[in-house]
């Protein structure tokens, strides 16, 4: 179809784009000057431009030696949705150890490493750049390709509608619901999470989720760990389209290193959300160059997200980040006076609710079950103490932010997101203490059981 460099191709490189997703491993064949061939599976490969591809040079010592002698290699590539197979001859051009292509390949390997804490093993030594000499369809099919076209293709109208809905949100709680519900209803992302950056700027915590049996509100992930942590660390979208294979491969490599004592046995980074995701994508939510959080979408199916989906999520990430920052600053600047409540009413349920709070890290337990920790835990404790000491039920964000027991940092105090996190955790557990929004920058707690508190120092 495409003539270039005097060769006739059965397809152009753009047609092979789905082959680079990693669902069906790419096979690399090389040969020595003496005619001894070698076969290896590629860890990662990327198209560079319309004529070139880049291969990760990571575990390929024999292939590298062969390429030094015979610079032509032969690939077998398979389109995952149709299983059309292509034989691709490539000519080695150069090895690069820096630059955009090297960084892209390095980041893809880092994503694999992040799944099993093998950052020291999955290090890209170099990226080899090849010019595509010839593309040949291995077996011209007598039948039309059966392409189930499972990938989402988020359309502009739906994206515009969701942007509009987000723009009309007046508080953070509402924003989280609108975003996650809208991603499913309008764009077909059935399993999603919004994670926000914590006060340390080194962790993400889950503020909202959609499509899971367990909401996982408050679950935390370190920067660099898992897909969401990788997106946060790089401030760039990260996607894995073949989670099963990547996880299986990484697990096997890790166990090999553990057996020879090169790596200590370690738990895998727990995957948030789906137990066995087929594909995941995470995009950073950035505002004015600062990371506010990450949107994570996943699917039980491999090869589920297209580049257009990543672009759509990136747009939404930017919008959400700006909205979160704007809402935080509005609430921060609100001057509403703190209303004081009348004496508390007698709880309807006479069974006491035990609250145990650990001052060291803010860990808080209700009836011996973990509720929350950190700033949100300290906030809960402060609200409960205020309520018990003075009978207050109504509070403002502004006054609570100034509470020194919360130990909020001067910069990026995250108070609003911690308040929403606490509110959602309490809703999730249907506890006797609940938080209700009563206006911009104002909220009320309701207490349905007598409280018995214990402070552990």
């Amino acid at each position, binding site marked *: 179809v495409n003539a270039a460099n005097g060769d006739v191709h059965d397809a152009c490189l753009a047609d092979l784009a789905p082959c680079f997703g990693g669902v069906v491993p790419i096979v690399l064949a090389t*040969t020595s000057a003496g005619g001894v061939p070698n076969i290896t599976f590629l860890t990662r490969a990327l198209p560079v431009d319309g004529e070139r591809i880049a291969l990760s040079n990571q575990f390929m010592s024999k292939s590298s030696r062969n390429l030094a002698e015979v610079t032509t290699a032969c690939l077998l590539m398979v389109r995952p949705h149709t299983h059309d197979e292509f*034989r691709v001859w490539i000519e080695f051009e150069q090895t690069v150890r820096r630059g955009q292509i090297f960084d892209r390949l390095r980041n893809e390997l880092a994503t694999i490493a992040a799944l099993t804490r093998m950052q020291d093993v999955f290090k890209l030594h170099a990226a080899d750049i090849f010019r595509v000499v010839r593309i040949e369809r*291995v*077996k011209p099919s007598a039948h039309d390709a059966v392409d189930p076209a499972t990938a989402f293709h988020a359309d502009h109208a739906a994206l515009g509608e969701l942007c509009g809905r987000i723009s009309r949100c007046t508080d953070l709680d509402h924003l989280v619901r609108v975003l996650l519900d809208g991603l499913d209803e309008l764009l077909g992302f059935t399993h999603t999470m919004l994670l926000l950056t914590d006060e340390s700027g080194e962790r993400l915590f889950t503020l909202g989720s959609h499509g899971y049996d367990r909401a996982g509100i408050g679950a935390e992930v370190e920067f660099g760990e898992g897909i969401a942590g990788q997106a946060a660390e790089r401030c760039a979208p990260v996607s894995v389209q073949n989670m099963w294979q990547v996880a299986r491969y990484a697990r096997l490599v890790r166990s090999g290193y553990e057996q020879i004592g090169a790596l200590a046995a370690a738990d895998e980074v727990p995957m948030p959300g789906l137990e066995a995701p087929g594909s995941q994508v995470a995009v950073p939510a950035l505002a004015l160059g600062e990371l506010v959080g990450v949107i994570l979408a996943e699917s039980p199916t491999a090869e589920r997200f297209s580049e257009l989906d990543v672009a759509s999520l990136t747009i939404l990430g930017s919008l959400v980040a700006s909205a979160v920052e704007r809402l935080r600053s509005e609430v921060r600047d609100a001057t509403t006076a703190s209303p004081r409540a009348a004496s508390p009413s007698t709880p309807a349920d006479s069974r006491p609710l035990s609250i145990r709070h650990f001052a060291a890290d803010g860990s808080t337990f209700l009836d011996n079950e973990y509720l929350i920790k950190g700033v949100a835990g300290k906030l809960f404790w402060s609200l409960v103490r205020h309520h018990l000491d003075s009978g207050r039920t109504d509070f403002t964000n502004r006054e609570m932010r100034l509470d020194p027991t919360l130990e909020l940092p001067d910069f990026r105090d995250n108070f609003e997101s911690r308040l929403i996190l606490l509110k959602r955790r309490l809703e999730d557990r249907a506890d006797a203490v609940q938080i209700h929004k009563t206006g911009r920058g104002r909220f009320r707690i309701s207490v349905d059981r007598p409280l018995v508190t214990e402070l552990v120092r």
Partner: protein
Amino acid sequence: MSTVRSMLDDRVCATLASGSSHLAAVTAADGTPFAMRGWGATVNAGERCLRVLLDAADVERLVDDGAVLVGSWIAYTAASVRTLTSFQLKGRVSTSEAVSDADRGVYERYCEEYYAAVLDVDFIRRELMERMEPEALVAVEFEVEELFDQSPGPGAGRAYGAAS
């Protein structure tokens, strides 16, 4: 050679025999590599000689282009779909001939077990896998002269059983 014979152990044979992806590479007449799928293998002659099944169209094309298959090196890889255990066997082709009924049985078993493993592990439907099937097969034999363990991990690519 005796070292290689001892290396074709149960683990290697099991990987070749069941639920694995087979690939082959040879060197074409112009000195460049040529990759193709393998469609089943049988270990014969005291576990030194490997009989592998290749797409007849690929082999005919190589020969038409001037390659002399017999006497040339071939690399043959079997990678378990379930465990990713992977071995590469290399040797010089001694025979290239039409397939027998026994070969067709090997091919059918290979497809059944390979497709079942792929469906089981990667959820790829059989109809898609069948799209890659060859219309005709050729049987190629070679004596295994080199054997490498390519299972992912720190030992990937090392000669298998070299110390024995």
